[in-house]
C-alpha cells in the first residue's frame, strides 16, 4: 500500500504546525474521527464498485502548502489561466492553483462577501468554526475528514440577508505541475435568509498534469435563500474526491448543475438535507467517462421537513473500457409528509467494454409522499444512427452528435450562456477524439 496510513497517523498525533490556530478545533475533531476510520474498501457499501487501493497508488493525500506554490513562475500561471478561463463570463473571479489562492489572478478586492479563512476577522472566524463540518453526518467519511484534518485555509462566501448578488462568483481551481501534493479545496457558502446568488465552480488541468484534489464544499442555504451552483469538472488528468454537502432552510431553493469528466478516479458525494418546510432542490448532472477512466457519483437527498420537493436528473456517457457508478438515494424521514421527490438516471454505453453500475434508492418512512425513481442503461439508437449516416455523416461523427444529444438536456439548462457555450465546446472537442472501437 502507499503512504496513506502514515499520513493519517501523523495527523492523529498532531505533530504538524499549522497556520490559523483558530481552526485547531476543526482539525482536532477531524483527527479524532480519522482514528476510527480506514480507507474504504469494496466491503464498504458506498465504495463497492471502486478498487480504491489500486486507484490511489502513487496519489498524494498530503496537502500542498503555500510556500511550494510560490516557487512556480507566476507568468506561466497567467498564460495557463488565460487559455483555460471561460471567456465572456462576467463574474467575481476567485482563482486557486493547486488549492492555494492566487490573489493577483483574482478580483478579491472587488469581490463582495468573500474572504479567505486566513484573512477572516474574528466575527468571520467564529462563523466559519460554527459552520464547518456541521452540515452532514460524517461518521464514516474518510476523505472529508482527511481534508478537515489538514485544514489550513479555505474560502468563505457569506451572502447577507436579502442580498441579491449582481454577478456570479466564478471560482477556478487549476491543477498544474507534475504530481503536486494534494489540493485540499475547502469552500464554505452561507446564503443568509432571503438572499440569492450564483456560483460557478470550474475545475481544470490545462496542461493535463496529473494531480490529486480532495474537496469539501459546504453550502448553507438558509430560509428563503436561493443558491444556484454550477460545477464544471473538466480536469481529466486529476484524481478527484469531493464531498459536497448542502443544508437547506425553510422555503429555500438550491439548484445544482454538474458537468463532470471522469479521470483515473473521480468521486462526487452530494448530500442535500432539506431541513425546513417548502424547500426545493433541483440537481442536474452529467458524467462522461472514456478510456480506462472511473467516475462515481453518489447523491443523497435527505427529506427531513414536510412539504419539500426534490428533482434529480443525471445523464451518463460511458465509452471504451471506462467504469461509471451512480448511486442516487432519496431518504424520506418520518416527519417529511407531502414530499415530492423524483430521481432519474439515464446512461448511454458507447462500447461493449464500458461498464455502468447504477442504483437508485428510495427509503421512505412517511406515508403521504409522492416519489419516483428510475435508471436506464442503453446504447445508441440504431435508427437515429442510420438516419444520420444516410445523410453522409460518418458513423463516428454520427455517434458523436448522438452522444452530445443525449446529455443536451442537462447541458442546455446551464443558466449562463457563456458557461454553456464553453462547456459545449469542450465536450464537442472531447467527443471528436473519442475512439469508437468496438462500439456498436
Amino acid at each position, binding site marked *: 500500500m502507499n503512504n496513506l496510513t502514515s499520513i493519517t497517523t501523523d495527523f492523529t498525533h498532531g505533530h504538524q504546525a499549522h497556520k490559523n490556530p483558530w481552526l485547531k478545533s476543526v482539525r482536532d475533531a477531524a483527527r479524532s474521527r480519522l482514528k476510527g476510520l480506514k480507507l474504504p474498501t469494496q466491503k464498504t457499501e458506498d465504495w463497492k464498485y471502486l478498487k480504491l487501493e489500486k486507484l490511489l497508488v502513487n496519489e498524494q493525500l498530503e496537502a500542498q502548502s503555500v510556500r511550494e506554490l510560490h516557487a512556480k513562475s507566476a507568468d506561466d500561471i497567467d498564460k495557463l489561466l488565460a487559455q483555460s478561463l471561460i471567456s465572456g463570463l462576467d463574474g467575481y473571479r476567485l482563482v486557486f492553483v493547486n488549492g492555494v489562492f492566487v490573489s493577483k489572478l483574482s478580483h478579491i478586492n472587488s469581490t463582495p462577501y468573500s474572504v479567505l479563512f486566513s484573512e477572516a476577522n474574528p466575527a468571520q472566524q467564529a462563523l466559519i468554526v460554527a459552520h464547518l463540518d456541521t452540515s452532514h453526518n460524517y461518521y464514516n467519511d474518510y476523505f472529508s475528514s482527511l481534508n478537515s484534518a489538514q485544514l489550513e485555509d479555505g474560502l468563505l462566501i457569506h451572502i447577507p440577508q436579502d442580498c441579491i448578488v449582481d454577478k456570479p462568483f466564478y471560482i477556478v481551481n487549476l491543477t498544474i505541475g507534475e504530481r503536486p501534493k494534494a489540493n485540499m479545496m475547502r469552500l464554505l457558502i452561507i446564503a443568509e435568509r432571503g438572499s440569492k446568488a450564483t456560483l460557478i465552480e470550474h475545475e481544470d488541468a490545462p496542461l493535463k498534469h496529473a494531480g490529486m484534489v480532495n474537496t469539501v464544499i459546504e453550502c448553507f442555504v438558509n430560509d428563503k435563500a436561493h443558491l444556484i451552483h454550477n460545477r464544471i469538472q473538466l480536469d481529466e488528468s486529476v484524481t478527484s474526491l469531493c464531498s459536497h454537502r448542502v443544508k437547506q432552510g425553510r422555503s429555500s431553493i438550491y439548484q445544482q448543475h454538474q458537468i463532470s469528466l471522469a479521470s483515473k478516479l473521480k468521486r462526487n458525494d452530494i448530500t442535500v438535507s432539506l431541513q425546513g418546510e417548502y424547500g426545493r432542490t433541483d440537481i442536474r448532472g452529467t458524467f462522461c467517462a472514456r478510456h480506462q477512466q472511473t467516475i462515481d457519483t453518489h447523491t443523497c437527498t435527505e427529506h427531513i421537513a414536510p412539504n419539500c420537493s426534490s428533482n434529480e436528473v443525471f445523464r451518463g456517457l460511458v465509452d471504451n473500457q471506462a467504469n461509471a457508478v451512480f448511486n442516487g438515494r432519496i431518504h424520506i424521514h418520518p416527519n417529511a409528509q407531502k414530499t415530492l421527490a423524483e430521481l432519474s438516471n439515464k446512461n448511454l454505453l458507447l462500447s461493449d467494454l464500458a461498464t455502468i453500475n447504477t442504483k437508485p434508492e428510495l427509503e421512505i418512512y412517511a406515508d403521504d409522499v409522492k416519489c419516483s425513481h428510475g435508471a436506464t442503461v442503453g446504447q445508441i*439508437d*440504431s*435508427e*437515429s444512427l*442510420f*438516419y*444520420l*449516416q*444516410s*445523410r*453522409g*455523416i*460518418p*458513423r463516428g*461523427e*454520427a455517434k458523436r*452528435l*448522438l452522444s*452530445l*444529444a*443525449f*446529455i*443536451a*438536456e442537462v447541458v442546455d439548462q446551464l443558466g449562463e450562456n457563456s458557461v454553456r457555450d464553453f462547456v459545449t465546446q469542450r465536450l464537442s472537442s472531447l467527443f471528436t477524439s473519442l475512439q469508437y472501437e468496438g462500439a456498436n
Partner: protein
Amino acid sequence: MLKITNLTAKVYGKEILKGLNIEVKPGEVHAIMGPNGSGKSTLSNVLAGRDKYAATDGRIIFAGKDLLSLEPEDRAREGIFLAFQYPVEIPGVSNLEFLKTSLECLHTYQNKPLLSAVEFMKLAREKCALVDLNTDFLKRGVNEGFSGGEKKRNEIMQMLMLEPKLCLLDETDSGLDIDALKVVADGINALRSPERSFILITHYQRLLDYVQPDFVHVLADGQIVKSGGSELALELEEKGYGWLDSGTEQSASPLKV
C-alpha cells in the same frame, strides 16, 4: 446511373427480394408500386444500406461503383438520398447542426467549396420557404415533435439542400393532406433535371398526378412483374393489383426496362 441486376435480399432471415432487375438512367423518374409486403421498402433500404437489410445475391451498380460494398454514409456522399417513410426524431441534435454537418460531409467528399455560415443560413431559409416550413424549425431537434406532414416536408427540404443524384422517396406521399402533397410534389419537380433521377415508391396514383413518371413498375413478391409508362399507374388505380395475378406467370423472368 443505377443498374440493379438479379437482386435478392433477406430481412431478418426471410427472403423478400427474389431476383429484382431495374435500370434507371440520368434524368428519369421511375415509380414503383405494388401491394403491401411486396418488397418496396426493402428495396429502398437495401439501396440506402440499412443494417439488417442484407443483399444475398445480385449486383447494384451506382455511378460506376459497386453500391453494396459502400457504407451508408458513402452511398449518400456518392449521391443517393433516401426520403424516409418514417423519419426518426432525434431530440438534442438541432436541424441546423444536422444539416450543416451533413452538407459539410458531402461537400468535402465531393471536393466542393464549403459554405460560409451566412451562405448556409441563406440556403437553408430559402429551402425551408420552398417546402413551407417555418425557419424556426431549424433550431428545433431533428423532427422533434413534428407532425407527420412536417416530417415529410423536412425530408424534401433536406433533399433540396443536399442535391443528390438519385432521390429515393419511400412512400413520402402517404399520410399527407392534399396541400402537403402538392408541396412535396413541387419540391420534387423543382429538383428534376437531366442529371438527376428519382425512384418514387408509392401506393397511390395521387403523387403521380403532380409528378409525371417516365416509367411505372409493379413490384410483387420480390420481383418486378410489370413495367410500363405513366398510364400503367392509372390502370392500377382503376383495377387494383388483382388483375396482374394472371400475368405474373408469363413475366417470371424479370422484365428489363
